[in-house]
C-alpha cells in the first residue's frame, strides 16, 4: 500500500499509445498516490492521454530531454510538498506492481534513494552490448567513487525530499542522468539502496536514452564523473 503524500511520476515522450495501460497499472499498484506525467514536448497527444487517465500533466513547451523531464518532475514533487516520489518510465519497461517494493525502504527511512535494479537478483533481462558494457563500466566507476550500485542506469527509483532538493539543482544533466548523479547524492551523504525488480525490455526501437547516442552517453558520463570528483 502506498500512502498519501506520495507522487508516482513518469517522464513521457510520444507514448500516447502505451501510456493509458501503464497509468492504469500504476493506479492499481499505488491507489493512494498522485500520478504525475511530464509530457516532454510530445507530438502524439501524450499529455492529453495522460490527462484523460486522471494524471497531473506537466507539459514541456518543446522537447528538453529525459533528464530535464525528470527534473521537472522533481521540481513539481518538491513544490507540491510530496514526501516521496517514485519515478518510472512510461514505456512499460518497469512493472508498476513493484512500486510499493521500491518505495518501501525510502518510506521507512531506511534510505534516501532506492533504485530498482535488474541485476541484484538473477533475471532474464537482456540489454544491447554497448549498453551492457556502459552499465558495467559505470557500475565500476560508481564503486570507485563510493557508490556500490549494480544498475546505475535504472529509471525506476524512489526518493525523499532530500534527494529531490539535490536533484533540482542546476548540475542535474538534461539528457542522461545516471551514475554521475548517484555519485553526487552519495558525496552529499544521502543513503542509496538497491531493490531487486523485474523489468521488461522496451518494445520501442529508440527509447528516451538509447540508439546511436550510446557512445556519446559513455563519454558524457565520464566527463560528468570527473566534474563531480572536482566539485
Amino acid at each position: 500500500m502506498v500512502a498519501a503524500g506520495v507522487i508516482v511520476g513518469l517522464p513521457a515522450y510520444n507514448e500516447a499509445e502505451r501510456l493509458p495501460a501503464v497509468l492504469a497499472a500504476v493506479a492499481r499498484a499505488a491507489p493512494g498516490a498522485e500520478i504525475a506525467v511530464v509530457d516532454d514536448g510530445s507530438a502524439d497527444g501524450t499529455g492529453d492521454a495522460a490527462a484523460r487517465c486522471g494524471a497531473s500533466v506537466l507539459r514541456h513547451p518543446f522537447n528538453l530531454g529525459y533528464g530535464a523531464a525528470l527534473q521537472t518532475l522533481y521540481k513539481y514533487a518538491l513544490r507540491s510538498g510530496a514526501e516521496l516520489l517514485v519515478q518510472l518510465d512510461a514505456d512499460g519497461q518497469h512493472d508498476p506492481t513493484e512500486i510499493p517494493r521500491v518505495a518501501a525502504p525510502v518510506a521507512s527511512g531506511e534510505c534516501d534513494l532506492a533504485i530498482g535494479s535488474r541485476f541484484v537478483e538473477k533475471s532474464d533481462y537482456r540489454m544491447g552490448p554497448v549498453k551492457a558494457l556502459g552499465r558495467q563500466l559505470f557500475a565500476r566507476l560508481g564503486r570507485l567513487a563510493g557508490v556500490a550500485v549494480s544498475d546505475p542506469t535504472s529509471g525506476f527509483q524512489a526518493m525523499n525530499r532530500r534527494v529531490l532538493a539535490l536533484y533540482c539543482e542546476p548540475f542535474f544533466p538534461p539528457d542522461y542522468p545516471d551514475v554521475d548523479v548517484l555519485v553526487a547524492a552519495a558525496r552529499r551523504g544521502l543513503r542509496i539502496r538497491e531493490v531487486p525488480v523485474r523489468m521488461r525490455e522496451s518494445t520501442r526501437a529508440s527509447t528516451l536514452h538509447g540508439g546511436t547516442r550510446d557512445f556519446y552517453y559513455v563519454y558524457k558520463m565520464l566527463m560528468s564523473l570527473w566534474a563531480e570528483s572536482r566539485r
Partner: protein
Amino acid sequence: MTDAERLAELRQLFLHAPESGAVRLVALLFALSLAAVVLALVRRRTLRAEYTPIWMAVAFGTLLVALNLDLLRWLTRALGAWTISATLFMLGEFFLVAICLNYAVRISQASGHIRDLAQEVALLRQRLERLEPNAQGLGEGEGAPASTR
C-alpha cells in the same frame, strides 16, 4: 656556410620580402568592411551591442596591420616564424578556437536558462490547468509557444 646559417639567411629573405600593395589593400578593405557590417547589424538590431567589442577589435587590429606591416614582421620574428602569413594563420586559429570556446560557454549558460524557463512554463501551466480546468487546451492555441522540434 653551414646549414643553420643558410636557413637563417633564407628566413631573413622571407621576412624582408617586399610587401605587396594588393595584400595591404585587401586587409584594409576587410577591416573597413568588417567594421561596417558590425555597425549595420547593430543598427538593424540583429547583433547586440555587447557582442561587438571582439569584432571591432578584430577590425581595428586588421586595420593597424594593414597600415603598418612592420608590426606583423616584429611579431613573426618574436615568435620565431618564417613568414608573415604563418603568423597570421596562427593568430587566426587561436582567435577561432577562443571565440568558439567563448560561444560554447555562452550557449551552455543559455541552454540552462531555457531549460529552467521551459520547466517553469510546464509547472505554471499545470497549476493553471488545476485552477481553471477549461484552460486545459492551452498549448494548442495562440497562448502557447511554437514547438522548436
